[in-house]
């Protein structure tokens, strides 16, 4: 009994301590930042302090500019990522289940995966002009191959005994894919989805830098044009927050759910 109490106390302290350390670390970092900014080594417009950046964030959101930019960037991401998701699932399943496609299309995708997707941007601009289609194309190129390879890996590493058992119990065609092959591959698919989202987000930001319509990447560029480092930093902070939020709020729960079901340890 005494042992159990002791143990639970240790657990709660252990889960609290990392957060305390994290908070202290970031508080110290902010303080250091403020001290350097106040020291006058660099002029204010090149190295603004945390308060200047915070006020830039508040201004940006209160005049609606940032919200609009976030909306534009996220909708591009959503469109591009959705297309990658659908195409990647189908392509990954085909490659994972067909040896000839694996040997041909599979190796092509493996090669294309090695190309940073922002490298598609010049070609996309030649093909589509400085348009929505060009930037969405780059987002798709960022996410598609990771998702495809994730699905492919999941399908190929599925224990064949699941397929045997399912076929034996009468699962055929679509049911075999939707109820067995895809769910069995889910842990690997989620890894591919996560990697795909990271690549898509990065290539979107890089692509938006050279676009003239309002967006997060474009705001970074405008900040530079106006010689306003506090706006540049403010937008960087917003981009970080969105990235972390999508990781924590969307992928976190999905991953946890799968881990709990399958009993995979962290």
């Amino acid at each position: 009994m005494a042992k159990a109490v002791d143990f639970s106390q240790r657990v709660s302290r252990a889960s609290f301590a990392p957060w305390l350390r994290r908070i202290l670390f970031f508080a110290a970092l902010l303080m250091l930042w403020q001290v350097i900014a106040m020291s006058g080594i660099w002029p204010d417009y090149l190295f603004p302090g945390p308060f200047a950046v915070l006020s830039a964030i508040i201004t940006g959101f209160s005049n609606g500019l940032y919200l609009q930019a976030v909306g534009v960037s996220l909708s591009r991401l959503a469109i591009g990522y959705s297309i990658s998701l659908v195409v990647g699932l189908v392509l990954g399943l085909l490659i994972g289940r067909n040896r000839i496609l694996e040997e041909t299309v599979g190796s092509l995708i493996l090669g294309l995966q090695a190309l940073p997707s922002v490298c598609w941007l010049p070609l996309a601009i030649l093909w589509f002009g400085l348009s929505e289609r060009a930037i969405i194309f780059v987002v798709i190129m960022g996410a598609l191959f990771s998702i495809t390879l994730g699905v492919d890996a999941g399908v190929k590493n599925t224990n064949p005994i699941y397929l045997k058992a399912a076929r034996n119990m009468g699962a055929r065609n679509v049911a075999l894919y939707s109820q067995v092959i895809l769910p069995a591959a889910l842990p690997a698919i989620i890894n591919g989805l996560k990697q795909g989202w990271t690549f898509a987000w990065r290539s979107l930001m890089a692509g938006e830098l050279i676009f003239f319509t309002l967006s997060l990447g474009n705001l970074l560029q405008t900040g530079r044009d106006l010689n306003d480092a506090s706006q540049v930093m403010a937008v960087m902070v917003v981009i970080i927050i969105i990235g972390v939020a999508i990781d924590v709020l969307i992928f976190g729960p999905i991953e946890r759910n799968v881990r709990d079901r399958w009993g995979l340890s962290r």
Partner: protein
Amino acid sequence: MSYQVTLSQSRNEAGSDRGSGSYGGISLQIENVSKVFTGRAGTVEALRPVNLTIEAGEFVCLLGPSGCGKSTLLSIIAGLEPATTGSVMADGRNVQGPGTDRVLLFQEAALFPWLDVQHNVEFGLRQLGTPAAERRALARRFLELVHLKGFERSYVHQLSGGMRQRVAIARALAINPAVLLMDEPFGALDALTRDRLHTELETIWSSTRKTVVFVTHNVREAVALGDRVLVFSPRPGRIVREFRIDLPRPRSLEDHSLVDESAEILTVLREAIGEHEGEDENG
């Protein structure tokens, strides 16, 4: 074509006979079935031609050392693997693929880790198009039969090895197959759990009268369960001797006649393994 008939027939039976569960087994005729695997390292003869007739409702144990092709034979009967020669007839119809009249159970239980226990048991019924409410009720009933009431919402990793096999049995029984093909299902369990599952399986078998083909390398297990025990030689496998076990049921592992019978079969099995090299020369 004939396979389609089998499927629709078992669907009818699953629908009409769910109350009593007394739908019995069917006969199996294995004619000249052999298996040769062709791989990169050349060809491997896994199974010499086997001829075997199993009566409806019979409990037959295939006994032999690991890798003697008995599991391969089971896969062929299940229709999950093609035979190199010969044919399998289930209830007089040629087996041409997997069918829900013959369900294979694996040593690893092969439960789906993405589904909870309830949905694992419902899986086969879902493929048959059974309505959701009926599926739920049937799954509950079979989980109760294998003493797993209260574990409906558990996931596979939360269950012990014995519980997983129980779920696998419930999942197989739910689609009301005529034949249970069991591939060393209790091989990875501890002795106590195995004994308990023997008793449960015997009870289920005697109340449903399904045909059971049970693969094992454990002599006592074979004698405790089987009406007939077929002893296989090492690879390439073939049947060397057949024993009819006429001991009364339910059987006890401590029973003297069971122990004697086991000893006799063990001798035959040892001889088969020992003679293996000499046998190879003569073909």
